[in-house]
């Protein structure tokens, strides 16, 4: 099957950021995203999703490498100082290039 290389950008952070992240990635030209509620822990402690202020999300965005880079740089510069965040990239292959 014919596939096309793209970047998968994964952002894990506080759910308070969800609205902002969705708005930001659209402004940078990403065409879609997937969000899941998650739990976890790390350098800034544990987040167990036990109540409203303790919830975290994982956002996945598949897009061109240049756009993924810009989104990641923006997220780091804007939110990383004050919010618990994890970011990473992955190489993925997509079937329908125009969707991403």
């Amino acid at each position, binding site marked *: 099957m014919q596939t096309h290389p793209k970047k998968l950008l994964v952002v894990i952070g506080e759910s308070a950021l969800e609205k902002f992240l969705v708005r930001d990635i659209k*402004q940078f030209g990403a065409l879609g995203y997937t969000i899941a509620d998650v739990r976890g822990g790390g350098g800034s402690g544990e987040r167990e999703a*036990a109540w409203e*202020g*303790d919830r975290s999300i994982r956002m996945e965005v598949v897009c061109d490498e240049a756009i993924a880079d810009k989104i990641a740089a*923006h997220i780091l*510069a804007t939110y990383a*100082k*004050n919010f618990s965040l994890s970011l990473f990239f992955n190489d993925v292959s997509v079937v329908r290039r125009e969707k991403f």
Partner: protein
Amino acid sequence: MDPVVLFFLLGVVAKLAKSDLKLPEALYETLSIYLLLAIGLKGGVELAKHPILTIAPQAFAAIAMGATLPLLAYPVLRFVGKLSNVDSAAIAAHYGSVSVVTFAVGLAFVLKRGVAYEEYMPLFVALMEVPGIVVGIVLARMLAKRELPDSSDSPGDVRLGGSTETRMGASNGTRWRMLAHEIFLGKSVVLLVGGLLIGWFAGPQGIDPMRGLFFDLFKGVLALFLLEMGLVAAGRVADLKRAGPFLIVFGVAAPMAFSVIGATVGYAVGLSLGGTTLLAILAASASYIAAPAALRIALPEANPSLSIGVALGITFPFNLTFGIPLYFEIAKRLHA
């Protein structure tokens, strides 16, 4: 002690003993929606029976009190506790706003003793959610400007396409539109106000078929919710170890001082013994749903583990166990 508080203590013990007890997130959300709606409906049904002119001065006093409490808390946090400007303002905002669940337990307390109260009191819960949060945010912004004259260099100040909309933080501009949305359309305000309006519009006859669900089951649902809140509150203990002794003392002293203000205001505007107790409880309580959500966006520099740690880890359990009976005694003294 009311049995509902024992459910809370069960949650605390289970968490501290590292039990695997956990309520599903969807159940927590459902119970929380139920409680907010039920409290709103209860108040709304009663609202229809009273002339607006009786309630208006009391409502105004409740709003004014909600806006004033952060102004009293801030200097103590800032100058006695030596906390930063944003942390002081954020904690002050939590104490200006109210905890609906603490109010619900107060309601159960008053009902159990058969003390008369103004049954439209849930209106004041809805009215007191927002002013304290707004005052806390304004305080942080006003005082941050004075402390940080050149805040445009802060790393949080990233512009996107020349828009100032993406900037976050108290010292470099808050996005008021998104923030106003968060504050006024947060779930607790929507459900409380929605419940009040539905109850007011439908009246006692209209709500009667739903009485079994929303009124009769109320206390059982509250008990279940408090079990979960015990788990959550005990989970904040680690935050408090980091916060130090000042905040622990503040978490007990502030509600006691504010309850005296609440009781005095309640008595002054002519509330009954039950109403005075409930207003004292509202003044003493600290928000843990509406305030954290709004402040995370408005003042991202503030450390949420401090404000939530003290509001949920100290003040909430204190109010449930010792505070509510104490505030009832204060109200009784005033009415004696």
